[in-house]
């Protein structure tokens, strides 16, 4: 922990006073829970919660700004921007994130928002698709998901998605790596307890792409999956691989009813 977040230092005086306020606020995280499902927010320290709560101290908002600029930027041979087809993002993209990832009939697979953005870029804008985990694709994903902030996650797992959903569930329960751990061992059976110094969360994805303090930038669910897989000493799958798409669908369903928090702050 060599690094110190400036705000906590500079506003130390204010924080002392606000400290009392945040402890009372901690009990008021009802909106971040749905039945027995808890958002990663409920596991945060009061300091990190305060950071997420206010848009100006939430560094993820920089990516929202970046995404907003990209949304209106004309790109590709067709000479179009996202806005040219979709119109105002506040209207067109509202609620969109709650239904992703979803089944797509054209590719006969599960797609997430990143896939959808690149499909649009290729088909309608005739522009080059963005690389997965590139700053543009992250910014655009953050921006689109941000339009649904506060709305409950509600992905469809029936019809043609069933097969993929079951694959995702299998992945979640499958032991892997030298440590021989499945996702469920930490994030289902032992959520709320500690693995060494880390507080285990339920592994909900409602705040993704989140600003992670460790990364010092925003990152996608797939980056998080890869990190988790490496931690149990398994070989991680590639970004946008079918395995992770299915897992993303299953995990999104696990967090049904939780509000979209993008851009969330996580440690």
């Amino acid at each position, binding site marked *: 922990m*060599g*690094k*110190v*977040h*400036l*705000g906590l230092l*500079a*506003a130390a005086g*204010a924080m002392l006073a606000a400290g009392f306020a945040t402890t009372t606020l901690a009990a008021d995280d009802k909106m971040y829970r749905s039945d027995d499902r808890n958002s990663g927010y409920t596991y945060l320290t009061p300091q990190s919660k305060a*950071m997420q709560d*206010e848009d*100006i*101290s939430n*560094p993820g*908002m*920089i990516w929202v*700004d*970046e995404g907003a600029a990209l949304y209106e930027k004309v790109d590709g041979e067709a000479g179009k921007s996202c806005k040219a087809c979709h119109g105002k993002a506040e209207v067109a993209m509202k609620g969109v994130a709650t239904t992703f990832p979803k089944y797509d009939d054209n590719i006969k697979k599960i797609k997430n928002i990143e896939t959808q953005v690149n499909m649009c870029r290729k088909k309608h804008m005739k522009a080059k698709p963005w690389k997965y985990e590139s*700053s543009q694709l992250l*910014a655009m994903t953050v921006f689109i998901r941000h339009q649904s902030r506060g709305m409950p996650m509600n992905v469809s797992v029936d019809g043609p998605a069933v097969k993929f959903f079951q694959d995702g569930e299998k992945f979640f329960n499958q032991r892997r790596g030298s440590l021989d751990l499945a996702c469920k061992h930490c994030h289902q059976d032992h959520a709320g307890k500690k693995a060494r110094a880390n507080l285990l969360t339920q592994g909900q994805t409602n705040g993704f792409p989140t600003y992670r*303090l460790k990364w*010092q*930038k925003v990152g996608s669910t797939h980056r998080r999956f890869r990190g988790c897989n490496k931690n149990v000493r398994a070989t991680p799958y590639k970004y946008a691989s079918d395995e992770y798409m299915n897992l993303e669908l299953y995990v999104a369903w696990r967090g049904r009813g939780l509000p979209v928090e993008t851009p969330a702050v996580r440690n």
Partner: protein
Amino acid sequence: MAKSKARVKVPKSVKKGEVFQVKTLISHKMETGQRKNKKTGKKIPRMIINKFVCQYNGKDVFVADWAPAISANPYMAFYVTAADSGNLDFTWTDDKGNVTKKSAKLNVTG
């Protein structure tokens, strides 16, 4: 994100003599100069924002020299006493001499 983006928050209007809070946020990787490239073993050169200045109607009201221990995407909050209506101008300067500017209007009543 090659170019830094900044966000600033000041109150819409304040009373004369009132002490108000200003909050700022800027995107920057804040490379410490301590890290090594894992593949080549070479040090990654330092690249941080080393100076932050806030001017109130052309006069410095808050100046800070930043050091390598400050996190990426630094957030800065501080207090200013309201005098006259006008502009708050913010300037961030990094090691390569890149300057990011942002300004906010302040309306002082009474």
